[in-house]
């Protein structure tokens, strides 16, 4: 069951972050971003669906992707705390996306050679999507960081607030090391290499983090996740099994 749990963790990361991005739909500062953010949300939710479906089959207890996504409570969700952080302002959203994509891009690249065909398949699609998320979010981080006094201050605030959540990216989940998935710790080099030039151009300092925030993988979440799930799951729970 270690693979099931590891795939479920990944699926939770993608669904929760995808849902967060989708909250911008109709609220983005300009029409162009109002399309770009849901585009990225749909990339993540698409990946989540394939992973949930795969996890359901690995588990083999009759649950399907909907049961895994909509019928588990907050304590059963295993997503990274980074993924559930509130959208905040545009600086927060773009930095959160950059942190996540800069990790997932090398992760999926390593997963291309997985012995698990579904995982290798997801990786093939996701590497291209993550490359775009890095580019899109990175260009915004650069422009906000090296923009006006106001945007620079907000960008640096976002770094200070979100950086403590990045350590959890590199921790193995509750399932531990699984042969079919890449080791997370080794991604730090690639992650830092992606961020450094962006931070340099954005005139941002990468802070030291004495006390990293972790706990998502053991189901210990911030208070925001409960609200997110309540909204996301309400339709399914009111109308179980409904279809379009």
């Amino acid at each position, binding site marked *: 069951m270690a693979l099931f749990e590891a795939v479920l963790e990944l699926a939770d990361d993608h669904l929760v972050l995808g849902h967060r991005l989708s909250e911008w739909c109709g609220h983005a*500062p*300009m029409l*162009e971003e109002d399309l*770009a953010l849901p585009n990225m949300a749909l990339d993540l939710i698409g990946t989540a669906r394939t992973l949930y479906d795969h996890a359901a089959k690995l588990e083999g207890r009759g649950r399907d992707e909907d049961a895994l996504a909509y019928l588990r409570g907050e304590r059963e969700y295993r997503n990274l705390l980074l993924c559930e952080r509130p959208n905040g302002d545009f600086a927060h959203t773009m930095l959160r996306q950059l942190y996540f994509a800069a990790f997932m891009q090398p992760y999926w690249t390593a997963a291309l050679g997985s012995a698990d065909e579904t995982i290798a398949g997801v990786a093939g699609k996701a590497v291209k999507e993550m490359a775009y998320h890095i*580019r*899109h979010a990175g*260009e915004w981080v650069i422009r906000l960081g090296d923009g006006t006094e106001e945007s620079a201050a907000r960008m640096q605030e976002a770094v200070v607030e979100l950086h403590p959540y990045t350590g959890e990216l590199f921790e193995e989940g509750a399932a531990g090391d699984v042969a079919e998935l890449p080791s997370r710790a080794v991604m730090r080099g690639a992650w830092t290499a992606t961020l450094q030039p962006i931070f340099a151009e954005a005139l941002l300092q990468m802070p030291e983090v004495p006390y990293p925030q972790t706990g998502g993988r053991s189901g210990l979440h911030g208070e925001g996740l409960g609200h997110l799930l309540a909204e996301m799951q309400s339709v399914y729970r009111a109308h179980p099994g409904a279809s379009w």
Partner: protein
Amino acid sequence: MTETPLWEVFIRPRNGLAHKHVGSLHAADEVLALQAARDVYTRRGEGVSIWVVPSVAITASDPDHAAENFEPTADKIYRHPTFYDIPDDVGHM
């Protein structure tokens, strides 16, 4: 966002065809304009290449000159290639 520049977007649907004007968008600079064009105009697999051009770089003909610009061609039907039979081997022109 009133000072955000306007860009015209051109998409090439596939190799061998010309870029075609598809619309416009607002973006702060050319890099963000390209990204926005990708997100706004290629969501359904519309293209393989994107051009963005600052709208201010386009000089347009004056609608008041439409009569003198375009109407003189109306009676010169001999300029249309409809008097020639195109051999089948030529294919799509």
